[in-house]
Every structure is written in C-alpha cells, then in structure tokens.
C-alpha cells in the first residue's frame, strides 16, 4: 500500500474507532427523530383535547348560521347574560374561551368590538379561523345592508394564477421556485455542516500530532504534504461514512416510529386543521403531483455532478486551511484567532444563499458570490437548480480549482514549518514569514 493509503487508513480507523464518534453516529439520528416526534406528538396531544368555546351573542349575529362543531372544537351558546357573568361562568366550567359579540347599531362598530376571552393567551390559528368565520357572517350582513346580492358576488369571483415560463419555454412557478430553493439549500447546508464538522476534526487531528510530539517521527518517514492530504481524505471518508449511516438510520427510524405511533405522515405537514377544513386535502395531492413534476424537470444529472465537484472542492479548500491552522498553533484555544477568516466566507456563503439566491437567483450578488471561490461551493449549489449558464459554471469551477491548488500549496507551507514550531503563539506576520522558509 502506498504511504498516502496507509495514512488515510490510519486516520479513518482512528476516527471511526473513537468512542465519541461511534456514540454520535448511533445516537444523533435517534435524538433527531425523537425530537421531531416529540414535537409532533405534543402538538397532537395539545389538539386532541376538545376545546369548548362559549359564545355570548348579544346581537344574535350567528343565529342564522351558528358555528359548527368540529373534531377539536365545540361551541356552547350563553344567552341572557352580562359579559361579566358569562366570563365567570366560562371560567368556572373551564371553557377554553369566551367569544362576545356586542350589540351595536352599525355593523362596523360590531366588527370593532368583538372580544375573545381566554384563560391564557389563545392559539393563534384558532383565533384566526374564528375571525374568518365571524367576518364572513358580518360581510354577508353588510352585503344585505348595501343591497348587494351575495350570490352574484360568488358568481363574479374569478381566480387567476399566472403561468410562469422562461423565454426558452421552461415553465416555472412560485411553488417550483421554492422547491428549487429547498434543494439548493439542502445541498448548501449539507456542505457547510460537513466543512465545519470534519474540517474541525482535521484541525484537531493535526494539533493532536503536535501535542503528542509524534509529528517529527512521522515526517521523517513521509512528506508533510502526504500527511496533510492523508488526514484530509481520511477524515472526509469517515465523515461520508457517518453521513451515510445517519441518512439511512433517519429514514428507517422515521418509518419505524411513524408505524409505531400510528402517526400519519400527511398530518406532520398539516398539524393544525382544527376549525376550518378548507378542503386542503385536494390541494395537497395536487401539490404533490406538481412536486414530482418539478423534480422530474430539474437538471438532476448536472446537479449531481456539480454537487460532487463543489462538495469535494469546497471541503478540500476549507479543510486544508483548517490543517494549516492546526499546524500553526499548539492547542485548540489558540486556534480561535485564525478561525475568523474561515468562518466569515462560510457564513457569507450561507447568508448570500439564503437571501440573494432566494430573491433573485441570477442577480448580480448571487452571480458574483457563486464565482468567488470561498463562497462559490455553497452559493453555486443553491443556484444550480434554477439553471446557471455554462460559462458561469466553468469560470466558477476553474477559479475553485485554481484557489484550491493555491490554498493547498499555502497550507502545506505553513503546515511544514508549523508542525515543528512549539511554544509561541504565532501571529499573522509570522505565518507570512514561514512562507519564505
């Protein structure tokens, strides 16, 4: 086996045999899935208790069309009572809330003076749906007062959704855009997570070799560059293994837990369907079909290839910087001062991705940052689903590779000198001097 192979193998083994790594690999999916289900479960438990809402309708507004009970809410009318008495009564009987519609001459005054009393601050969704209902009834009244036939209004209602398309005929929609943003963001965040976790692990591994003083023995056998690359690749392989295990485990666990708790997957997306059942189910299945259609239209092969290129390029670029920092310092505490220049472009990439790309995937900010090497892996991955001109991809990749080569050379120089330097906390000026050694 070549020396690089030996180093990669050792780095990989020492990483995956580490107890903390094993525990994290196994425990993290359980924790994540458990948290998701805890939230869903709690929301469900919250909703499953039937809420009773008392209605004191002094105007008798709802007499013609009373509020209909639903699965989670039931309504009780309170008649011939003052507001104070109704409040007392509602509190004694532990009703969820009390809706008070006062008596006024003008419909506008009624609308302004409706009160909803609860013990604690109420569920916002529930209030909104109640408001919607009461508003509807009030509107009908107003129509009548103005002498407008509400049936005609219904008939006159026209819906229009624009059909979006590019000049070349590629169809798009707002929904399609958000699906694309979703895909891009997942890729971008995944890369950022990977860089932060495993780049750091490369750095720690370099520092460990320095503090245990084995470094001089190793580099009397291999070139520092080989050692650095071995570390970066070994850690990446360990990371990919961990990510793969996480992915498989999370999917399995979600299905297992869903089956066990009997939670319907569609409910996770729509946890609150209490007062108004607006026939959204039909909507969801239509969205689902559109979703599949959008995915089938995405440039999947290109996305896959570019994901691999930017993932590798971005990781190698950043992890070589992490390795150089590890070599420059004696312990992790000292590394903080050099972390800024790494974290800054990484964060910038994520923020540009989150704001500029979402607003305008082909705007100048998104375009420029998808070319600058330190931010390009994240930003370009977010832009790719929207279709990026070939020349931009080529320029971006060329710059990335060029910078990668330069950074590795730079990092290797700092690494070569730094691993044998002990005792003093280096400054940027000193690092610059090392480049001349």
């Amino acid at each position, binding site marked *: 086996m070549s020396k690089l192979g030996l180093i990669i193998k050792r780095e990989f083994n020492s990483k995956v045999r580490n107890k903390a790594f094993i525990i994290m690999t196994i425990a993290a999916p359980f924790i994540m899935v458990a948290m998701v289900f805890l939230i869903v479960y709690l929301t469900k438990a919250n909703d499953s208790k039937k809420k009773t809402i008392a209605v004191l309708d002094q105007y008798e507004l709802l007499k013609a069309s009373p509020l209909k009970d639903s699965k989670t809410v039931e309504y009780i009318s309170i008649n011939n009572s003052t507001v104070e008495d109704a409040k007392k009564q509602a509190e004694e009987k532990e009703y969820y809330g009390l809706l008070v519609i006062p008596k006024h001459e003008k419909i506008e005054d009624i609308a302004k003076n409706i009160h909803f009393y609860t013990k604690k601050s109420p569920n916002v969704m529930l209030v909104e749906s109640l408001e919607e209902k009461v508003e509807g009834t009030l509107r009908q009244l107003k129509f009548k007062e103005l002498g407008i036939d509400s049936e005609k209004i219904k008939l006159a209602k026209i819906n229009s959704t624009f059909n979006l398309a590019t000049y070349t005929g590629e169809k798009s929609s707002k929904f399609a855009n958000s699906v694309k943003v979703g895909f891009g963001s997942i890729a971008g965040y995944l890369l950022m997570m990977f860089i932060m976790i495993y780049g750091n692990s490369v750095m720690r591994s370099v520092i460990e070799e320095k503090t245990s003083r*084995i470094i*001089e*023995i190793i*580099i009397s056998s291999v070139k520092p560059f080989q050692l650095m690359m071995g570390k970066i690749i070994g850690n990446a392989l360990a990371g990919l293994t961990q990510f793969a295990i996480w992915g498989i485990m999370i999917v399995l666990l979600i299905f297992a837990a869903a089956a066990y708790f009997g939670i319907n997957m569609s409910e996770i997306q729509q946890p609150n369907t209490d007062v108004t059942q607006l026939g959204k189910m039909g909507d969801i299945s239509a969205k689902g079909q559109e979703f599949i259609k959008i995915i089938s239209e995405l440039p999947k092969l290109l996305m896959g290839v570019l994901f691999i290129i930017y993932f590798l390029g971005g990781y190698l670029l950043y992890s070589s910087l992490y390795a150089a920092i590890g070599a420059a310092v004696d312990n992790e505490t000292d590394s903080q001062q050099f972390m800024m220049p790494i974290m800054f472009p990484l964060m910038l990439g994520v923020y540009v991705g989150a704001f500029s790309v979402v607003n305008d995937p082909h705007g100048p900010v998104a375009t420029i940052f998808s070319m600058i090497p330190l931010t390009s892996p994240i930003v370009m991955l977010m832009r790719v689903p929207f279709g990026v001109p070939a020349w931009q991809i080529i320029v971006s990749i060329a710059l990335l590779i060029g910078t990668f080569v330069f950074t590795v050379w730079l990092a290797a120089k700092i690494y070569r000198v730094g691993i*044998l330097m002990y005792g003093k906390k280096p400054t940027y000026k000193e690092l610059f001097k090392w480049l001349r050694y």
Partner: protein
Amino acid sequence: MKYLLKTDNVVKKFGDFTALNGVSINVPINSIFGLLGPNGAGKTTLIRIINQITMPDSGAVYLDGNQLQPSDIQHIGYMPEERGLYKNMKVGEQAIYLARLKGMSRQDARTQLKYWFDKFDIGSWWNKKMEELSKGQAQKIQFIITILHKPKLLIFDEVFSGFDPINANIIRDEILYLRDEGATVIFSTHRMESVEELCDHIALINKSNLILEGNLIDIKKEFKTNTFQVGLVTDDNEKLYQELTEKYAIEKANFKSLNNELKLNIKLDNDDSTELIKHLNSRALINHFVEVIPNASDIFIKAVKQNN
C-alpha cells in the same frame, strides 16, 4: 576511511537567522558519531536536514556516496529529542504502522516487532494503548520503533533523557550491539559522560558553524597541554613547592588521596616527561604521576569559549 554519511557545506537560513553556516561533517561507517554543541547551535536543524524533514538552502548530503534521495528514509532511523506516539493507538498496531511508513512490509514489521518484544520481555504490551504505559515504557517502545526497520544509519537526539539508569544501560548496550552488527550511529547529546563512553568520533557545532570534527582520541591529543598531575611526599611541602616553582610552570592540583602529599599540575613544553620524573624522583617520593588528558567536557567548553 569509508564514510556512510557526508554533509557538504550545508547552509540553512530561517528568515534572517542563519541556523547552519556551511557545515560539512563526515560520519565514518560503523562508528558512533557524537554531534555536540550548546543549545541552539544548530544540531537539530542539521539532523532534520539529514532526515529530509527540512531542505538545506544550499549544500548537499550524501549517504553511501550518493546524494540523499527521498527513498533513503528507509535506511535511517530517527529518535528525536521531543518524542511521543499516538496516545490512543495500540502499541503493536502503532509500531507496525510506523514501520510500514518506513517502507517495511506488514509481515516483516510484525516479525521484527515480535523479536524485539521478546528480547525486552514486553510481549504483554502489544495490545495496550500508549496512554496506559509509563513514560519510561513509552520511551522503550519509541526506541524499538526507531530501530525496527533495521536502518543502517541511526540518529539519536538525547537518547537517554527519560530513562532511569537501569533502562539507560539496556539502551546503551543495544546501541553498542547495533554498532557491532554494522549500523552507524549519530548521537546528539549534552551529556559528556556518555560521549566519553560511547563515541568514536565527534563534531562540535557552535553558533551555526562547525568548529571541531574528528576522531575523539586525535582530538584529545590535539587538546592536551602536556600537563602532568603529580603527588609528592616530602617533609616540607612548602619548601619543595617554592623550589619547583622556579623550575617549572606549576599550579596546585586537587585530587583525592590518602596522604598529605604535595599535589601539583606541572606543564611541560612537550610530552617528554623523562627529565621531570628524574628530577622529582631526586627530590621526593612520587606516589602519583599521570598525564592530564582532557575529557570531552573540557574540550567542549574550551572549544566553545575559544570560538566565542
């Protein structure tokens, strides 16, 4: 004489600081070569250049007559002064890994490691993690790792630091054994008694320059001052002292003895002491007479002082 390793005019600068200023040393094959010098003189830099850890700015290093190649690392075993191993890696696995980095096959490494573990009777350490061993035990493993791939050139930087006297003796015997088996040893140290005991040749580096190099015996001859230490038994020490002061360059000497004799160091112009013995014999009873031979420590201090 055949030389295993030569450095030719090696220069190394770190920024504005010159660490080595044209150093040329010749290490005879099958010898123990002491590389000496005060702290910061440049010894470690020279050793690192021989190990190809750093590259010289100019000059060259020759191993067995050929300029040093990257593949030559398999012929060199290096035990640095600052040493350590992976703490959470098992002893056997680690030793085999490091031997394979030196180009050994897994099988050879395993066989060799077994041999040394049996020799030192430490077979039970094989599956222990480094962090479970004491410092002395770890040093022993380190020594085995250094010699595991049977290098023809061994470089030890302060090899005895960290060993108790018993283990230091074991290591010293192993170094002598390896030399007898054909290895050449470069030995960098501050401990002059071990230089005296082990080294055939020495080189002295001071302030980035080589100031002294050669066979230890030749160097001692060069540094001797034709001084003889004598012990004279007389009735009147003071009288004899006055008398001898007029004839020779003398000073009071200090050594342990049983009698209250007159103890002197007498310096002659050459190493012919016949005349001196004759004269002293006629004046007093000689119960101590020895030529003062400079030890490594004296030579070290003298050479460095002269150079400064």
